[in-house]
């Protein structure tokens, strides 16, 4: 295919050529950054919590009134939940994965550590916690019922026994011998690692250390309590519907907030990631519409060019050019314009990514997405120009003789 004649023809359509190239460049810059955002959000949303998430129901409860201690109320409630039909196990805690609110502290290896320490989220629980969450204990043992103690609002949580996640254990003791070691959640108060679980994530979706979790054998003496319930297989809906009545049946002096008082874990997950999901959907729609508009623009302008050059096409056909030559001409022409567009587009895309990196604390664009974007836009250009080019190839050689 002769490229020189194409270039000299394009020189006569500077404005149109520049506009198509510019449009392709801008589309590429926006689309590959948008797709990258989609990728990041999807990656975020699909992170696992380490729990067996099916059949778990979470209840946020607040007691009304100011009794001497909330612990007896809590114990009664947990007993009532465990004896509910369809319930496999239940426990009371201060936070759970994806809840978007919880406690964290720094762990020290020495009793009087001055350094920042290793950050960890804190989950309170008891000997039923591991079974209710469905997390796997990979070393050591579970809590026993006589290890569970209560803690007041102004106490620092630092029980003698703790269970930690594998990742946290390895961070504290890189040699992999964390089990049985002593660590400090509060100055001078030792805690022994009695168990290690495979994986469990923190309550927040955007925390720096998503896998640093400690489970403590504590019950929080507070009016705020969270109950987690594991339903027997197939019983989740029944438990979800009846659990509020069960609790109100025990004691009416409580509030289960309307929107998030009782939630299945699917609801918790959907709520935690709804912003990410919304952003991913929005970005996908924008990409789709942008590509469609760019394709339509190419079709429009190419059709116009074909219409404008009918006579020249006729002359070429009359001089012996085959249909495929004409088709090839327009396809190549578009390819050259698109190529110029993507070259500029790649520069714009990288610039845009750099700008978003500084202004929105986002990761830098991965080059795969630039390549994907380039391929998509070149392909789009070829697909869009195909119909007008086909029409051009059908111009009869007779056109050359008309209207002269």
């Amino acid at each position, binding site marked *: 295919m002769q490229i020189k004649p194409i270039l000299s023809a394009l020189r006569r359509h500077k404005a*149109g050529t520049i506009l198509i190239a510019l449009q392709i460049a801008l589309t590429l810059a926006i689309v590959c950054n948008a797709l990258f955002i989609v990728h990041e959000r999807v990656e975020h949303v699909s992170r696992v919590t380490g729990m067996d998430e099916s059949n778990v129901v979470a209840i946020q409860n607040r007691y*009304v009134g100011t009794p001497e201690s909330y612990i007896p109320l809590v114990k009664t409630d947990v007993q009532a939940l465990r004896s509910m039909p369809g319930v496999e196990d239940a426990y009371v805690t201060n936070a759970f994965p994806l809840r978007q609110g919880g406690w964290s502290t720094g762990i020290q290896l020495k009793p009087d550590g001055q350094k920042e320490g290793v950050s960890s989220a804190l989950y309170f629980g008891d000997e039923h916690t591991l079974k209710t969450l469905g997390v796997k204990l990979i070393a050591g043992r579970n809590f026993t019922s006589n290890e569970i103690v209560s803690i007041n609002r*102004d106490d620092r949580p630092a029980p003698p026994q703790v269970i930690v996640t594998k990742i946290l254990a390895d961070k504290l003791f890189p040699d992999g011998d964390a089990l049985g070691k002593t660590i400090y959640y509060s100055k001078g108060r030792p805690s022994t690692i009695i168990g290690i679980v495979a994986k469990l994530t923190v309550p927040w979706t955007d925390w720096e250390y998503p896998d640093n979790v400690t489970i403590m054998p504590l019950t929080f003496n507070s009016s705020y309590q969270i109950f987690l319930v594991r339903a027997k297989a197939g019983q989740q809906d029944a438990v979800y519907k009846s659990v509020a009545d069960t609790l109100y049946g025990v004691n009416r002096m409580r509030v289960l907030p*309307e929107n998030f008082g009782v939630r299945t874990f699917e609801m918790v997950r959907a709520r935690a990631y*709804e912003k990410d999901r919304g952003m991913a959907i929005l970005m996908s729609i*924008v990409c789709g519409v942008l590509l469609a*508009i760019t394709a339509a*623009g190419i079709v429009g302008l190419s059709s*116009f060019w074909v219409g404008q050059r009918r006579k020249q096409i006729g002359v070429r056909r009359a001089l012996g050019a085959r249909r495929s030559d004409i088709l090839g001409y327009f396809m190549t022409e578009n390819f050259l314009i698109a190529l110029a567009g993507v070259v500029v587009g790649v520069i714009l895309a990288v610039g845009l990514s750099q700008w978003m990196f500084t202004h929105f604390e986002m990761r830098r664009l991965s080059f795969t997405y630039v390549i994907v974007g380039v391929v998509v836009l070149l392909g789009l250009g070829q697909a869009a120009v195909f119909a007008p080019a086909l029409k051009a190839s059908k111009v009869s050689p007779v056109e050359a003789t008309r209207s002269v």
Partner: protein
Amino acid sequence: MFGYYVELALRSLRRSRALTALMVLAVALGIGASMTTLTVLHVLSGDPLPGRSGSVFMPRLDPRDLDGYDASAALPTQVTWADGMNLLRAGRAHRQALMVGGATAVQSDDASLDPFFVPARFTTADFFPMFGVPFRYGNAWSNGDDEGRARVAVISDALNDRLFHGGDSVGRTLHIDGVDLRIVGVLAPWRVVPHFYDLSTGDYATTEQVYVPLRTARDLRLKRNGGVECWGSGSADEDGMETASCVWLQFWVQLDDAGAVAAYRTFLDGYVHEQVARGRFLRPARSELPDVMQYLDERRVVPGDVRLQVWLALGFFVVCLVNTVGLMLAKFMRRAGEVGVRRAMGASRRSIFLQLLTEAVAIGVAGGVGGLLVALAGLALVRQQPSAAAHLAHLDATMLATTFAVSIAATALAGVVPAWRACRIPPALQLKSQ
């Protein structure tokens, strides 16, 4: 003449329906997307106290110890009980209020209504006049009630509906957390966006439903919430909050003119220096007095995602416009013959240019209408999102007018180059080749 241009434009637009539809659609989508995101941004970054925000200020000082001292770090946004009370008692501003958020369990006389929790605010009396809070019934408590720890409360319109079916409940009793308070006022619907006076309870938190005098609430040990920052031996033990080395209260003042602001700055600076001299403050003396909007700017309350979406939509709009320029160019150049004939018949370049521009503007008007529909649909979608303040996203008159103005201006601008090119077509060449 203009009528004739419009007629020509409409005729021409009708002739190539697909192309026209494509241009209108592109403009509509671009405009609609931009307006949707801009409206959301506008709502989220709006002025929470229109007409007042310039005279409401947050005195900031630094009572912390030297641990982790960084001279360039921002000052705390809250105050200790001691400083709050000192500044409140000094009374150097026109109005001043010391406050903290809370959550209270409300019980109804109606036994069929289960107790429920509502957000509460424990504050001194100036809160209401300073922030221009509207009352439906009754009014705020007095400074005397603050000092006297009166058992009074103001409730929101929504809570009044829920407990008293919207009637005038002034003088009736409110049961919260096991104590009884006399209702002295019921607010008219009131919402500040963002929730500037206490961002620690959520940037876009809803306004509170129960208001209780600060000292009364502390006496009754009503449940407090919000951010607490402690240092040294400070602990978050609830009973010791008044003496703890923790900042946990918000303090706002109203200063009506530049003189008052300058005087208050001097006073605040003097107060900080005095505290440093007495050894209560350990850090070098530093104070600030931002107004509401300065404070919100500093805290960057608008979510990053929202700003990102605005940029994305604007980028999208630019692509749509470039697309429209290209299509218009094609369309106008295709009519070279017609333009040639008109030129030969005596039409000036100017009139050709204006006629083609009229056509561009016609597309702009149609695009504006389409964009409005897209924006309305987009905002309806945004309101479905349960995220904070999303339900506040409504198109107001300004945004509506802006949608049209931008659409018409943008398409007219897009039409300039193609129209310019078309009107420069030499008439003779076109006529010859016919």
